[in-house]
């Protein structure tokens, strides 16, 4: 126990929060590096900020230790080193795996936590910054996902067939945002409101600002209007301002995490059916849902579904914004077409109910 909690504190202290002034004094905004991306917190009243940051730190440190396949000391890396078997998982990882399996069931296998070996085969076997951006060696035969139905989870007991490697990328960040938002609300006495973003996957909790949390839905990557320094003072092309009164929104895109392998562009969203990078008409999919785990799964599923994404999202009844490779934007399920419009999410969730194993209820 002492070792675990010390590790959590040490890692939490490793990446300091930086306050961000967004133009409003009524809400405190801060961000820090976390989980290989950026975590952003917005909370009101502003004097809740310190408690909120501590709550987010604890959640992110725990999630990192549970589900990061880039940390050799994580629980999921421990699973990697075994060749299948029956495992007793921590409550946190069991919940993360359960959410991933529910997402696979909901999306009909468009997301699948058994794509781990496929990702490794494509070259995504290490931190992205250390991947050779232009490997010349031939691409091995693609490895379709063995299939989520082969994985059995009964409470904390996981049965993993030999050779099956889990990757929770389609749901873990969203789940992390959900957990963090719930933890902030609990830490602040269930007063005020909070928004948590993990690499752009956003969850909210509590009472929103009037009209909803103002957020940007990013534009097309590579055509975001940024200049050589990466800044875009005018905001041109950076997407759309929307307001989220409740729920969550997540975005999946194939435009950012890419590399070349044997002359072919690779990215991190793999079609479980083929074991190859998804190759559909949509470059970016933003989806709103009651929980961020749901939104995260749906956004990834939309990219994988390709030409069927519109039908799938319409059937699910989720507000969504799809951006094609050519920059055309498609709005679905009530996603507002005008700047400043509200996103109303369905009042149900499919893969995560919003209450964690540690009581992070919202």
């Amino acid at each position: 126990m002492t070792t675990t909690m010390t590790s959590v504190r040490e890692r939490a202290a490793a990446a300091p929060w930086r306050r961000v002034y967004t133009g409003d004094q009524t809400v405190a905004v801060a961000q820090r590096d976390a989980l290989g991306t950026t975590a952003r917190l917005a909370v009101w009243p502003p004097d809740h900020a310190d408690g909120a940051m501590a709550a987010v730190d604890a959640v992110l440190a725990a999630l990192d230790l549970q589900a990061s396949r880039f940390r050799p000391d994580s629980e999921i890396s421990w699973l990697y080193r075994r060749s299948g078997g029956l495992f007793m998982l921590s409550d946190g990882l069991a919940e993360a795996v359960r959410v991933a399996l529910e997402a696979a069931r909901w999306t009909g296998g468009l997301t699948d936590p058994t794509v781990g070996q496929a990702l490794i085969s494509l070259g995504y076997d290490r931190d992205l910054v250390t991947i050779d951006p232009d490997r010349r060696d031939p691409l091995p035969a693609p490895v379709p996902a063995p299939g989520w139905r082969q994985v059995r989870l009964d409470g904390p007991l996981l049965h993993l067939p030999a050779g099956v490697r889990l990757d929770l990328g389609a749901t873990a960040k969203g789940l992390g945002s959900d957990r963090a938002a719930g933890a902030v609300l609990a830490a602040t006495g269930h007063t005020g409101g909070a928004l948590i973003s993990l690499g752009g996957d956003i969850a909210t909790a509590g009472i929103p600002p009037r009209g909803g949390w103002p957020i940007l839905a990013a534009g097309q990557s590579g055509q975001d209007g940024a200049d050589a320094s990466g800044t875009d003072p005018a905001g041109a092309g950076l997407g759309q301002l929307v307001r989220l009164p409740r729920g969550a929104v997540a975005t999946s895109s194939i435009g950012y995490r890419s590399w070349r392998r044997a002359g072919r562009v690779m990215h991190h969203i793999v079609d479980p059916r083929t074991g190859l990078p998804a190759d559909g008409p949509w470059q970016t999919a933003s989806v709103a849902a009651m929980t961020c785990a749901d939104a995260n799964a749906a956004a990834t599923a939309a990219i994988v579904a390709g030409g069927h994404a519109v039908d799938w999202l319409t059937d699910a009844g989720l507000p969504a914004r799809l951006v094609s490779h050519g920059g055309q934007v498609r709005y679905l399920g009530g996603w507002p077409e005008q700047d400043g419009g509200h996103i109303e999410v369905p009042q149900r969730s499919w893969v995560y109910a919003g209450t964690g194993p540690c009581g992070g209820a919202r």
Partner: protein
Amino acid sequence: MDADREYRAGQVPLPGFGEPDAGCQPAPPRRDGVRHARRMSNWTLAALIAGTGAATVALAHHAFPSVATAAGSSTTAATGGQAAVNGTGGPQVSHAVATTSGSGATVTTTTQTVNGRTVVVRTVHPAYHDN
């Protein structure tokens, strides 16, 4: 005795067995419980005051002609769930506080005042990897 600890074929040690989950918070110390009780008492008192006030307003409503409520003057005393549905009750926030972007792409929005003018700067940068 050590043989008792060895695992048979197909069995594996359980990670963190016997230890609390790292994702769970330890039980709050007793003083937090006392604070919580005191806070709840304060909330109870506040609710009583608010209830009395509401009753007074209700009576006044029946006694006098209604007056239109100023726009945006909703109270924060609404329940969290209802307020979340309506998007009322919180502060007025005009600027985007976060960006939903492609996995790993982070857009940082900051606002500065330059020569008396508000300048919003958005910076796009990729992150490192997915988890």
